[in-house]
């Protein structure tokens, strides 16, 4: 067979058609780049871009993504389970409590307690031993029996509630408070359905006035411990001492875990002046709602009310107790799910306090750290400022959760860097989400949504023309990411034609389509010209002679 029996125009023509295709592709690509740039933030004025680069992004969508990094397990309420052993009491009881043999110690203390069932110190020593041994049911029996056998506790509490000079160092006062606290711990710890509300509420009542004064006055706005310590009978105040936060904490936990109702005290508790704080507004709104629903969830409403009281004493600071803050955030979340406007600032303060104080019992550190991590994920706390405190909590976390904590901190830094990166990116600048590794992609999409929300709020105050350009640029930034409600609302202020154009102009697919049309048109024009040049040349060519010459040369 002979070789290339083709028309003489073939080689240059095919090459030219291929070159035309390359030119067309280049034209289409150039058209796409130009069009997209003309409808991006890069086309906005320098002033607008500078303002957009300086926007603060509120974590909303990103918070949802970050929460998914640590699973959706429900947080537990933390009980203040510290029941210090008294330093005073009957000598034989104290001696028995120090018996190294647990069985012998229990038997000896039981014998002493049986002999003096109304002795509160003996009951406290015995109950404390049983609680430390984890025998909460027996401890509840012992403590309840003693409190049932005597009225001394009630008279002391009554006196304390009316006295303006309550001496927490008084052994009798301390004994009663510790006895009731120990009973509450025993009941909450073994999940008793018959919570001794009297114990829980009465001891609060006895220290309430003092707590109020102490917490509200002594340390307002001061970054020092504000806790009011109650030393165990005969003991000096120490870091292990019971505090008023512990008492309030257990009362709140009791409310949240049970279904308490009190028709008599209800009106007194929930009759409130006009709210002056966001949390107060939430409480008032929920009380109003409870009235309309026949006091549904009354127990949890009592918890919220107590949280609000304790927090109110410290405003504008928050209680500097990690466990109380931990439980308080859960109570607030329980009530404000979906309607938390105004609460995030308070919530962030409590979470920040949790990280700063971290004063939880060693056996509660795991639960506390995991819960604090979940709360951090849904907060607007400046995580960079908590980096050192977070490093302490990191040691209490599993490796997986510790990684999540690292990513939280990295995500916060990325969120801060995002506006500048989106609007005024420097050459070769690393993407903010790069440090998040495989989590970066989903986080970035959510971060775009959050940024779009902030940018939409900014654009709302711009002139109409600039606003349209900004909306197009924001839509383009968003890409496939979810549009925030702020952007949707802003867009609805424009007519449907304007909206349609803004959507098309911001959609890269539209410009790809236009670029493809341009490329096709360029190629068509070039191909048309080439085809006609070829046709003209072929018309003047004798293909017979071409074949003849080729055949004359013979087979190759």
């Amino acid at each position: 067979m002979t070789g290339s029996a083709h028309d003489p125009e073939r080689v240059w023509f095919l090459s030219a058609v291929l070159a035309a295709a390359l030119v067309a592709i280049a034209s289409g690509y150039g058209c796409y780049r130009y069009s997209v740039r003309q409808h991006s933030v890069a086309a906005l004025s320098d002033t607008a871009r500078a303002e957009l680069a300086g926007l603060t992004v509120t974590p909303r969508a990103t918070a949802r993504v970050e929460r998914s990094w640590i699973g959706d397990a429900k947080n537990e309420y933390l009980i203040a389970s510290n029941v210090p052993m008294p330093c005073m009491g009957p000598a034989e009881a104290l001696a028995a409590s120090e018996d190294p043999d647990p069985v012998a110690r229990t038997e000896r203390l039981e014998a002493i307690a049986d002999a003096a069932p109304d002795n509160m110190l003996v009951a406290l020593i015995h109950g404390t031993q049983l609680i430390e041994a984890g025998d909460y049911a027996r401890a509840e029996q012992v403590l309840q029996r003693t409190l049932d056998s005597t009225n001394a506790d009630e008279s002391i509490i009554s006196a304390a509630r009316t006295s303006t000079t309550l001496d927490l160092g008084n052994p009798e006062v301390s004994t009663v408070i510790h006895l009731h606290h120990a009973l509450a711990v025993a009941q909450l710890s073994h999940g008793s359905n018959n919570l001794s509300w009297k114990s829980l509420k009465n001891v609060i009542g006895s220290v309430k006035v003092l707590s109020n004064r102490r917490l509200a006055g002594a340390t307002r706005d001061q970054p020092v411990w504000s806790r009011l310590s109650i030393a165990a009978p005969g003991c000096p105040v120490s870091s292990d001492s019971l505090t008023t936060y512990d008492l309030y904490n257990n009362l709140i936990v009791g409310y949240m875990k049970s279904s308490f109702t009190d028709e008599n005290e209800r009106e007194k508790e929930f009759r409130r002046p006009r709210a002056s704080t966001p949390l107060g507004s939430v409480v008032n709104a929920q009380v109003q709602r409870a009235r309309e629903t026949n006091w549904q969830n009354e127990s949890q409403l009592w918890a919220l009310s107590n949280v609000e009281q304790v927090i109110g004493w410290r405003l504008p600071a928050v209680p500097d107790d990690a466990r109380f803050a931990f439980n308080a955030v859960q109570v607030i979340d329980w009530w404000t799910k979906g309607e938390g406007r105004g609460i995030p600032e308070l919530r962030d303060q409590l979470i920040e306090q949790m990280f700063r104080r971290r004063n939880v019992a060693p056996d509660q550190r795991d639960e506390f750290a995991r819960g604090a991590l979940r709360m951090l994920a849904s907060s607007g706390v400046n995580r960079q400022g908590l980096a050192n405190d977070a490093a302490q909590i990191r040691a209490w976390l599993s490796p997986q959760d510790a990684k999540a904590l690292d990513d939280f901190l990295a995500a916060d830094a990325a969120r801060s860097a995002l506006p500048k990166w989106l609007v005024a990116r420097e050459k070769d600048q690393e993407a903010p989400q790069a440090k998040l590794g495989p989590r970066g992609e989903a986080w970035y999409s959510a971060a775009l949504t959050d940024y779009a929300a902030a940018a939409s709020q900014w654009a709302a105050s711009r002139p109409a023309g600039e606003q349209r350009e900004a909306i197009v640029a924001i839509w383009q930034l968003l890409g496939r990411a979810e549009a925030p409600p702020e952007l949707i609302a802003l867009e609805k202020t424009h007519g449907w034609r304007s909206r349609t154009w803004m959507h098309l102009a911001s959609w890269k697919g539209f410009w790809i389509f236009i670029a493809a049309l341009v490329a096709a048109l360029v190629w068509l024009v070039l191909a048309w010209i080439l085809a006609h040049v070829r046709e003209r040349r072929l018309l003047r060519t004798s293909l017979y002679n071409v074949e003849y010459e080729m055949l004359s040369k013979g087979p190759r």
Partner: protein
Amino acid sequence: MALYKCDACNAYRDDPICEKCGRETREIQLPDTTLEEVARGIVRPDESLKSPLPRTGGEGQGEGDLPAPKAPHPSPLPAAAGRGEPEPPPAPVLIRGLDEFEALLDRGTKAVIICGDSKTGKSEIAYGFLRAQNHHRGQAQFMTLRAPSRTDQVLGGTVAGEVWFQVIDDKLAFLDPSGEFFKQLSPEGRRQLGLPDVTEEHFAFVRRAVANLAGVVLVVDLTRVLGPNDFSAWKRQEDDLNFILAALRWLRWDKEARPPRIGVSVNIAQRVSALPRLDKPVLVLFSKADQLPQYTNRVPLELARRHLPTLHGALMTHAKRYRYDFCHTMIRTGQGDAAIDPPCGVLLPMEWLLHDPLRWLPLQLPTRSPILGGGK
């Protein structure tokens, strides 16, 4: 009335002296056939004598060389009516091979119609394209042309009243009608024979093919000349092809009802200028180019412009895209004509006709446009 033939002009005369060249003619002995019978067979009087014709070209045994078919079908033409009067509607005719070809068209095959006078080498060109494709492109196809008189050397002529077809591939097929069909359409031939105007029935062999058209090949035998500088013999072919092109254009586009009182020729002449030009390319092949060395070193377009003005004008008028080229598929040897492998001038022009990948481009300029320069 006696009939004479001028061998120099290859034309029939009424007088012993040719009115055109002034040479003596020879008398044609008519058998016991009437003019109508001659017309019915569309054979020239001398062909009806079954005398073997001398081969003037190299290709294609004359259709007249073949034994007369035993005609299992009625003659393609009805009895002629009086001269100049509209012919009465003829009875449906049976054209051998047409049913099968039209069945191919029903499958979506597109037709490449090869037009030309008898013995111009139409079938050899169709078959030669297959050979050239096999030789140069490695694309084999076997012959579907029904050539009962085929020998090792030549293909033989298409039997009168029969269409051959050659499948090119799954989408294309050549339609190779007998030259007799085109003779029937020749205005000059009919005038000489005193036949009435053509009827629509005369286009039956090509009507479906025109509707499924892929291209048209016009075959012109330039060897039919009196002398080296006498081009008058081409005029007959030009006139015939002029009419055929107009008829093809008319068949392709004119869907309107035709008044019965207007003859087909008149109808074509009146209607065709209002119709779109042929939208498929037209390739004019000057066959037997091996015998035309004085022409083949010229640009075919210039040759056509200069020496075939009627044909060139017809192409400008009726076709949008066209080109000219030479070809030869046989060579003359001492023992007669023999097919050559591969043929020359068939492959590339046919590929121009059939395989232009950018034919779909919109707004293509016609060949006659000044930009392409294919006009006057």
